[in-house]
């Protein structure tokens, strides 16, 4: 049995997860429509998308619960459907909506699940119960959603495995517990565990992930490291200049320019493609800059670009607890046109 992560696994060096052109159809619905997803060994990969984008379907294919309609999926060098049992010895999974056996206590459920995987470590279980502040003596039927989630998290972190698959694992957790969760994921990653973390909460992914794949309508629309993705995006700039700013609006790569009078001259707010940043700076300094600020894009912005409508309908990423400066800028920009 393999309990040491990332060693002695067949196909070591191969990606922990790799899907190519993965399709899954339910009747006429295409839940997955050519998904490419790669999680390198030892990497913490974010899997972002709005509800219904196909995140859970992809994960269930990876777990061998669903068989793909076409395309390939590899997990730790094995086939998720035919090698399910062998593969599951080396991974732990936390679903987004945990249901438990109502007549078992939380502690019993944790023991049962960890024993299925191997020999549980009682000390580790105690330590995790304490960290997540979970009372294991209550019947699972009386647990809140957050507490059911904790049961699954404790069971998943209780054994050391080479791969963690987490499907929106923090839904129902309060911010304090989210912090505990983040810490545990970092710890696992430091030990060489590969992690696939699906979420529609950007800050969660930003905190722990090395790479991000964004999925929409069953296919990956972007993927790369956080830095790579930021290259694709625009920075938001606020500047006060003395001269006539119309020349800035004419520059390629400048979007949504809004001007306003300012005691010092003219206040400009706009978005600029990072590729056009140099030219923009040149032009601004020619106009005489009084003040200047540029903010790097947050993942929220990646989201807004990809699913502008979905997100505002759903409201989840916007309700992430951050000041909505960027949204306001976008909104006012749109309004100004």
């Amino acid at each position, binding site marked *: 049995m393999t309990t040491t992560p990332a060693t002695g696994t067949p196909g070591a060096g191969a990606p922990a997860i790799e899907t190519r052109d993965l399709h899954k159809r339910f009747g006429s619905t295409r839940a997955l429509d050519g998904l490419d997803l790669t999680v390198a060994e030892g990497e913490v990969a974010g899997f972002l998308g709005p509800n219904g984008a196909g995140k859970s379907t992809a994960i269930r294919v990876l777990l061998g619960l669903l068989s793909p309609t076409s395309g390939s999926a590899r997990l730790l060098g094995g086939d998720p459907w035919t090698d399910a049992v062998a593969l599951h010895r080396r991974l732990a999974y936390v679903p987004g909506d945990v249901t438990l056996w109502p007549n078992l206590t939380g502690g019993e459920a944790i023991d049962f699940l960890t024993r299925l995987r191997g020999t549980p470590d009682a000390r580790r279980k105690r330590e995790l119960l304490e960290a997540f502040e979970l009372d294991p003596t*209550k019947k699972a039927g009386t647990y809140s959603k957050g507490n059911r989630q904790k049961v699954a998290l404790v069971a998943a972190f209780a054994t050391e495995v080479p791969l963690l698959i987490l499907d929106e694992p923090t839904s129902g957790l309060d911010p304090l517990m989210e912090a505990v969760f983040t810490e545990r994921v970092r710890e696992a990653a430091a030990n060489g565990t590969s992690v696939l973390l699906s979420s529609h909460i950007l800050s969660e992914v930003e905190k722990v992930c090395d790479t991000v794949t964004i999925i929409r309508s069953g296919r990956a629309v972007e993927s790369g490291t956080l830095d790579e993705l930021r290259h694709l995006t625009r920075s938001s700039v606020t500047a006060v200049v003395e001269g006539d700013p119309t020349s800035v609006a004419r520059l390629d790569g400048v979007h949504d320019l809004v001007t306003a009078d300012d005691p010092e001259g003219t206040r400009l707010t706009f978005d600029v493609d990072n590729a056009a940043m140099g030219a923009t700076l040149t032009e601004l300094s020619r106009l005489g800059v009084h003040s200047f600020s540029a903010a790097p894009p947050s993942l929220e912005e990646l989201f807004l670009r990809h699913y502008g409508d979905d997100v505002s309908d759903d409201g989840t990423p916007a309700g992430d607890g951050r000041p909505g400066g960027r949204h306001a800028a976008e909104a006012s920009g749109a309004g100004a046109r």
Partner: protein
Amino acid sequence: MSAAVATPSGTRAAPRGGSTLTGTGALVRFVLRRDRVRLAVWAGSMVAFYAYFTFALDTVFADEAAQQGRAAIMETPSGIVMGGPGYGLDHYTTGVAMANEGITWVVLALAIFSVLHMVRHTRAEEETGRSELVRAAVVGRHAPAVAALTTLVVAQAVIAVLSAFAMVAVGDLAVVDSLAMTVGSALSAVVFGAVALVACQVFAAGRAAVGASLAVFGAAFVVRAAGDMRETGGSALSWFSPIAWAQQMRAFVDLRWWPALLSVVALVVLVVVASALASRRDFGGGLVAGRPGRADARASLRSPFALAWLQQRGALLWSCLGLGLLWFASGTLLPEVGSMIGDLVAENPAIAQVFGTDGTELSVAFVALMILYAALCCAGYAVVMAQRPKAEETSGRAEVVFSHPVSRYRWLGAQVLVAGLGTAVLLAVSVYATWLGAVAVGWDDQTFGDYTTVVWTYLPALAVFLGLVVALYGWVPRLTGLAWALLAYTFVIGMFGGLFDLPDWAFRLSPFDWVPAAFSGEFSAGDVAVLWGAAVVLGVLGFVGFRRRDLVTG
């Protein structure tokens, strides 16, 4: 805030027009909408039960001799426990028998319905957190409970009226007496619903509330039986049981309405108590804190089999206890029933077709019929338990297990094995309980060995039911309920097959037709092999299908 403070008196303007009952009307409509199928099925089943019971009594016990034979049974201790206080035994017509024997069982069914309905719409809603959404809206604190009770009373009233109509239509019984019986039973059942409402305030867990309420019913059952055992027509003790309040209306004998008032009074008292308790507790809390359970699982809980056993053992225990007592009591009735059947057959050719005409075989045929009933109950248990994997799967619990190193075969195998073993145990308990009851009253025409033969000859037929559910589950999990159709068919063929002129294959479709008739049938190794073969093929088919298909996930 500041605007509110600015009133002259210095008091804040309190929101007006709200009471603890606000929103009840909307919730009533919501319950009816949500439960329309559930309520319809309960109502339909109850009315069908009334109609069937009336029809059976009316046709089988058509003349006075037969009726008095039945009355003689109802005078025995077992007859009193399973029947009623014994009003009108000297002139035991269909209506009298309905009221004397039927009420206990009708109230049992309706009480279970009441308890489940009340817990489902009050405590269970709080437990799942759904009612948090509802209560956050413009809805008073007591509104969900009152809505649940209102819908319960409406449902019970509809069932009572329709059932009375069924009795009148099928058995041509007196309208007022029929109505008295059904309304009295419904009121008695509503009392148990109110008990559940109180239990919901006391216990934080819905399951505990259901358990406590059914325990109260159990106590009421025992009190009524013990009270009625003391003297015909019931003693003072009987009156402590809500079941007696329906029986003491003496429908079809010497009707009086006032005992129904006891149910109404009890209902009001219980509702007041529940309301007082409800005001004292927090949302989601109970007066009795849930007992803390084990922090660590027993060492034995380490496999899908152990989990399946843990999930099914409660149902198995209660089925064994309930059915075991039922068949034991039935066994003790054998001597009386044997002689009664003899009289019946002599006068009713239809019954002769069911039991045969040979006097010596008659009693044997009757025991065999009881065994058939017992086996049908076991088949029902098999169908219910074999559908457990489906509940595990659709709830998402199977998904968690399957993310661990557990194969589809191992998981389904564990579930089916526990269901199968449970069915076998229940069959053995039922059959040997009948034997024990019979032996206890000196009826020893059939030996222990004869009963043992019955157990293992019926086993493969029950396995076919299990196999059918597994096969359906493996390929079309939506249709596992079809196994109930086979069970219904088996029942009809087993009970009435002889009355119709059916082709041979129609009999052979029933798994029980391949089982030699208990105590008399010719044993055929070929038939047994066919049954085992069918069960195994169906089971294997199901496993193959389950390995191939997608898991149904939320």
